[in-house]
């Protein structure tokens, strides 16, 4: 009964160029929306990355006055006293731009809105997310919010840092509306985040395939479920915060202004009540990707499935109780000690996950594909990022380390070494499914290695700077730090080269890649039972969940022949992939 076009690939153009563009612009297909999000996020990643490379370039040899009273540093034209101020100004805008774009427009939406949108319905065996039109709306809201934020840059930039701390954010650039544009941009982006999270929670509750209980879901879905709960519960708080900040900025209502009896620390509490949980919005989806990549590419069931699922929920729960560790210096000792203790709690479920991943790799049949190389990168970098969080949670050491480059290095290891690296793992893992094309594995591997080297050269150096007292967010520094800054800057260039290699690999894949098989890696989750790329309604028939997502020892993956699948001795496969895909669902 279904129409013909329901059986074509979702990528098949609908008529001419204009018709195709219109079709994409008005689509409610979660796959197309996921792809549109992916490209929007990657574009913003490019903008934020340009700002990062530019600010690292400024730090190579900042225009500054040395101990002898001479102006040094030549990067931004002839050096004199005014160029010091100009250089500092440019630097302040660059790091704000970098931070705001990377946090609000890249890392928060990156995995959930792109891969999550594409994969959650497929993994649950559903035709779409629960609210397809809301999903499209969230993409447009994302675009509008990004336009607001970018317009503040076009008007000359914002220099508050991505945290918009008062009273600086209410007093800087009094002649311009730039801060308001940036803040409203972040406010609008919050709606897109809420709508995505809400959609996923309902989808997971209501649209699982017949036979799929909560503990039959792939761990990717569990991770994004925990993420979505944080998005729904934390984002409104940043909404009211940024709204009050806008009122403060436009009308001077005084809530955050100490001169009128207001309290700037209240702003910080409000801000971090959102922004700390949102750190887990950034990392939980990354962990979710690794949960899929490691078992598939080691052909081994994930170690400790339930502990993984509950660790995700535990991280989401503790996420709401640790915001105070951003304000250790403006709280009572008792409050600081409590927040410090709660912060240590995060390490427990996180360490459970690390343990489980490594235990999964142990005695697995590991194939070092690009996604797997990235997953191993993730384990190394995230371990460093996680462990360096502990001295920052410790009150005594934090007193020395806070607001230094140690903090910068720590959260880049978690946010970039964690989230962006995992996003790349996921992209390489699901690229064949999303676009039906393989990529050049050799060059992708080279890219992965270059990114890994560039990343460590950039950020490992910053731990040393930070311990020696180099403060973050400074445009300039004493000469003793120059060698570290220059190593770090070289690293950022290597990193940029690595990303460009990936860009070319992806472009080459889209233009001339080999056609991807239905299930190139031998995954068992339901998205691999769909075509590559999937048909418009995902599955020809409603699939039924007949086995766990990681039963590699007893199920031959969809699209594979039993003879090609190395089954462990003594174990007979109970189900073949053919049976799985041809299974006609009930329900109607």
């Amino acid at each position, binding site marked *: 009964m279904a129409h013909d076009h329901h059986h074509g690939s979702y990528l098949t153009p609908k008529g001419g160029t204009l018709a195709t563009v219109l079709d994409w612009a008005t689509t409610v297909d979660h796959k197309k929306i996921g792809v549109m999000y992916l490209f929007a996020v990657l574009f913003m990643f490019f903008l934020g990355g340009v700002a990062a490379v530019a600010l690292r370039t400024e730090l190579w040899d900042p225009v500054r006055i040395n101990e002898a009273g001479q102006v040094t540093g030549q990067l931004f034209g002839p050096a004199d006293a005014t160029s010091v101020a100009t250089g500092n100004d440019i630097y302040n805008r660059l790091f704000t731009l970098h931070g705001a774009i990377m946090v609000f427009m890249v890392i928060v939406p990156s995995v959930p809105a792109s891969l999550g949108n594409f994969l959650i319905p497929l993994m649950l065996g559903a*035709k779409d997310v629960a609210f397809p039109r809301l999903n499209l709306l969230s993409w447009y809201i994302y675009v509008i919010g990004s336009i607001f934020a970018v317009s503040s840059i076009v008007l000359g930039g914002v220099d508050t840092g991505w945290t918009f701390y008062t009273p600086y954010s209410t007093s800087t650039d009094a002649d311009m509306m730039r801060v308001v544009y940036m803040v409203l941009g972040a406010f609008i982006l919050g709606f897109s985040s809420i709508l995505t999270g809400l959609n996923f929670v309902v989808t997971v509750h209501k649209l699982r395939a017949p036979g799929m209980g909560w503990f039959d879901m792939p761990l990717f879905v569990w991770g994004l479920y925990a993420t979505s709960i944080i998005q729904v519960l934390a984002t*409104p*708080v940043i909404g009211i915060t940024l709204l009050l900040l806008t009122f403060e900025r436009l009308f001077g209502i005084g809530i955050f202004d100490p001169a009128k009896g207001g309290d700037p620390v209240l702003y910080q509490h409000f801000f971090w009540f959102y922004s700390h949980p949102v750190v887990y919005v950034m990392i939980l989806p990354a962990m979710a990707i690794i949960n899929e990549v490691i078992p598939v590419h080691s052909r081994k069931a994930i170690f400790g499935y339930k502990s993984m699922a509950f660790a995700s929920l535990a991280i989401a729960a503790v996420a709401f109780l640790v915001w105070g560790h951003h304000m250790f210096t403006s709280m009572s000792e008792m409050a600081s000690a409590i927040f410090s203790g709660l912060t240590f709690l995060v390490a427990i479920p996180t360490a459970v996950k690390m343990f489980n991943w490594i235990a999964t790799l142990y005695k697995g049949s590991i194939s070092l594909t690009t996604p797997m190389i990235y997953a191993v990168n993730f384990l190394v970098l995230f371990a460093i990022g996680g462990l360096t969080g502990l001295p920052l949670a410790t009150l005594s050491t934090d007193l020395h380390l806070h607001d230094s480059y140690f903090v910068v290095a720590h959260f880049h290891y978690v946010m970039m070494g964690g989230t962006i690296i995992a996003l790349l793992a996921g992209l390489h893992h699901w690229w064949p499914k999303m676009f039906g094309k393989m990529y050049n594995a050799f060059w992708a591997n080279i890219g992965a290695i270059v990114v890994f080297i560039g990343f460590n050269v950039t950020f490992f150096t910053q731990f040393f700077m930070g311990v020696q007292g180099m403060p973050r967010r400074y445009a300039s520094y004493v000469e003793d730090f120059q060698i570290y800054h220059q190593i770090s800057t070289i690293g950022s260039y290597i990193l940029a080269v690595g990303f460009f290699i990936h860009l070319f690999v992806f472009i080459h894949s889209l233009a001339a890649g080999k056609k991807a098989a239905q299930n190139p890696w031998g995954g068992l989750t339901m998205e691999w039972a769909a075509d590559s790329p999937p048909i418009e309604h995902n599955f020809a028939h409603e699939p039924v969940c007949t086995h766990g997502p990681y039963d590699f020892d007893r199920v031959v993956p969809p699209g594979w022949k039993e003879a090609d699948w190395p089954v462990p001795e003594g174990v007979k496969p109970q189900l073949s992939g053919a049976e799985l895909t041809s299974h006609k669902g009930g329900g109607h």
Partner: protein
Amino acid sequence: MSTYPTQSSGQPGGQSGGAAADARPLWARYKFGHHFRNSHDEFEASKFGFWLFLSTEVLLFAGIFCAYALFRAMYPEAWAEGSKALDWKVGTINTVVLLVSSFTMAYAIYCFQTDKQERARRMLVITFFAGLTFLLVKFGFEYMPKWSGYFFSFDPALSKYTANIVPEQAKLGGLIQFVEGYGGKRPGKMFDYPFASSPQMPIWWAVYYSGTVIHASHVVIGMALIARAWWRARKGHYGPGHYTFVEITGLYWHLVDLVWIFLFPLLYLIH
């Protein structure tokens, strides 16, 4: 939420048959989204999603209540003085208006469930105008005098300030009267009320205006949802088999009511 495919695709939709020739009302011809198994699932999913959205609304207002609690603890005199500057009688009227409108909203949903179309639409109209009444009272009898010192000439509160009326400043042929020394109760740097005894009064008014303006904007959104429900109800979109949009409009309207139930005593009643 609601799609009306002109041809049956076989999968979605409890009912079959060509829409053009179908004489049944629109709600009976409703076909649920193709990604749901049945219309009950779709209804439950929509309600669940909307409850999640309501939780975000509660957290949004939580910020205001948090600021209220903090500054109340810091500046109890300002809070006492500010609370006394508000007229509990006006607040009570608005509370009653919203409570009644919550009843009419719920009754409208009941009427759709039992297919009493005309009464359902009438209830939506009453709810809409209750919302409008709330806004008019809020702006005309509270914001306007406090902000600028201008009163409606028929405002009962004006009788207390007859000695301070400046007839030269009256507007709209005497419909709006100006009272000397009453206005200027504004937030933050715009504060211009000469007789405040607590120096932190600007913060009180900042919390008052932020909270009530954000609430009032929710009243406006609620009224827009009700207007849409009424418009579509005229064409017969809602009935016993399908009334999802009215249901979630009702949930939203009750939240608007509930937030006011908390704002009212905190702002008007406790000193």
